[in-house]
């Protein structure tokens, strides 16, 4: 099971994700981020590509992962429908990404996320499962 909630931050936007395992946690973070940008149900996910990311520890890895995915949108105008993590440990991720090229006629941009910040980032294992917190610059 995975769910996320939006957190109040005066200037920006925060997300807290809860998941049963760390794969789901990182995948859920990616889907939650793109849910803020676009209604993912209208995407087809026709284009697929691979992504590898590395970090120094879990929080750094989470931010790096979300940064790379956000660059698909901010830098290459791709909207992500799905992500699937093939393999990961504390410092590496190898994943498959399905995305659509942005088409203003089809895709309404709900809100803009400009960057993924390191401020207050947490990745923790709790009795309820894995929990992560991320604040975005909007």
């Amino acid at each position, binding site marked *: 099971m995975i769910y996320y909630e939006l957190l109040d931050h*005066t200037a920006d936007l925060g997300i807290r994700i809860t998941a049963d395992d760390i794969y789901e946690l990182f995948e859920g973070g990616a889907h939650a981020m793109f849910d803020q940008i676009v209604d993912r149900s209208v995407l087809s996910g026709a284009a697929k590509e691979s992504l590898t990311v590395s970090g*120094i520890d879990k929080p*750094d890895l989470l931010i790096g992962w979300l940064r790379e995915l956000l660059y698909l949108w901010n*830098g290459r105008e791709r909207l992500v429908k799905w992500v699937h993590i093939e393999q990961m440990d504390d410092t590496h991720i190898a994943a498959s990404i399905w995305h659509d090229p942005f088409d203003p006629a089809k895709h309404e*941009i709900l*809100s803009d996320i400009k*960057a993924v910040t390191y401020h207050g980032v947490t990745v923790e294992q709790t009795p309820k499962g894995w929990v992560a917190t991320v604040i975005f610059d*909007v």
Partner: protein
Amino acid sequence: MELIQIDPYRWEIKKTGAMRVPARIYSSRKLIGAVKKDETFRQLVNVAQLPGILNAALAMPDIHWGYGFPIGGVAGFDVEEGVISPGGVGYDINCGVRLAATHLTYEEIKPQLETLISALYRNVPTGVGSTGRVKLSNSELKKVLKQGSRWAVSQGFGEAADIDRTEDQGCMPDADPDAVTQKALERGRKQLGTLGSGNHFLEIGVVEEIHDPLVADVFGLAKGSVTVLLHTGSRGLGHQTCDDFLAAMTKNHTIDGMELPDRQLACARIQSAAGRQYYRAMACAANFAWANRQILIHNTRETFEQVLGISPRQLGMRQVYDICHNIAKFEQHTINGQSRRICVHRKGATRAFPPNHPDLCAEYQKTGQPILIPGDMGTASYVLTGMPKAMEETFGSTCHGAGRVMSRKAAKKSAKGRSLEKELAEKGVITRWTGKSTLAEEMPEAYKNVTEVVDVVAGSGISKIVAKLRPIAVIKG
């Protein structure tokens, strides 16, 4: 963490624990309550722990919770011992404001105001992923990054006098395009001459009150005259530059063996290779932002002339000033009685140099630097001028705007079932916007009262009020 009130406008958090200097907050009884509730003061205390910080970690009255540094934060660092921090500058490097005055009056443009704002909305690309009409080759983009405003004027966007009336003449000389990553260059290539989204705007206003007639006259501001205020920055190029250097510096999140209190404060010694490289890349993004605002004000000038069918002389659009909000710069300041070159970080704060400062153009030597303080889109904006006290107390800095008080989520909730467009129209403000939730997120109640913010910087003597502007038409990204 104990907050001690020093006088009606100043509070202090004493140096304790890992703090190297105290924290000082410029505020008022009315304003300080809102920031006590969140993480803002904790963030300021974190800044006070950074190596080489001088005097005090400072907060302006528009301070609010940011990431790493609070927004509205100012910190000066020793060049040898100190650090430079991408998070201390912010994502939107040289996000800033440009003000132009005109010879027109409200009555003269009122019949055509709807047509004018619609034409501006077409001519100033806004919103997420908007692209400009300026297409740049790699070599041309690098010229923009080296030359800033000068590049834009050389291409016919505006006048040489605009450059004199721009902070740092619209160019940081240490810019090195080779320090900027390919990703940042790619994001910038299509975005020159665009407003962007979020809190960026173009506002037509009217000078409603003159507080200092002599200074207002030098700034070209007459009561009842129409103004244009522009707020935007370095777009994706600046964001990517901050992001890339933060990611690199975060890999080493200890400095002198000290664990940083927040990863977003990742930094490098000013004199280190990483520190120097960030500074040179940041200067490129700052120059991109100045070129961006130079192009946008030029497009605005042309649109006014076309729609109103008047000559440049009749329009009389004169740039008052252009200032930046998010920057780290080397400046000369007096520390413990000695004049020293230090590195000042301003994150959501404005440079505020007083009369006779050598960095100001000849026109403003007697008045001090114009300081442009936008409020929310339904209330007012202010023009202030720099005062000597800012050099003594705040590294020549002051506030930058109203400052948010409500989260975007709370603003959207509060806007449910309301027509903000209608509410603003009833207040005499015509709106155009691009983003689905932009008007709700940027609603007037989401911000502090700008008059209360300005009263603090005027009351504490770090700036002086010159004029108050009232918005009449606003474009939001």
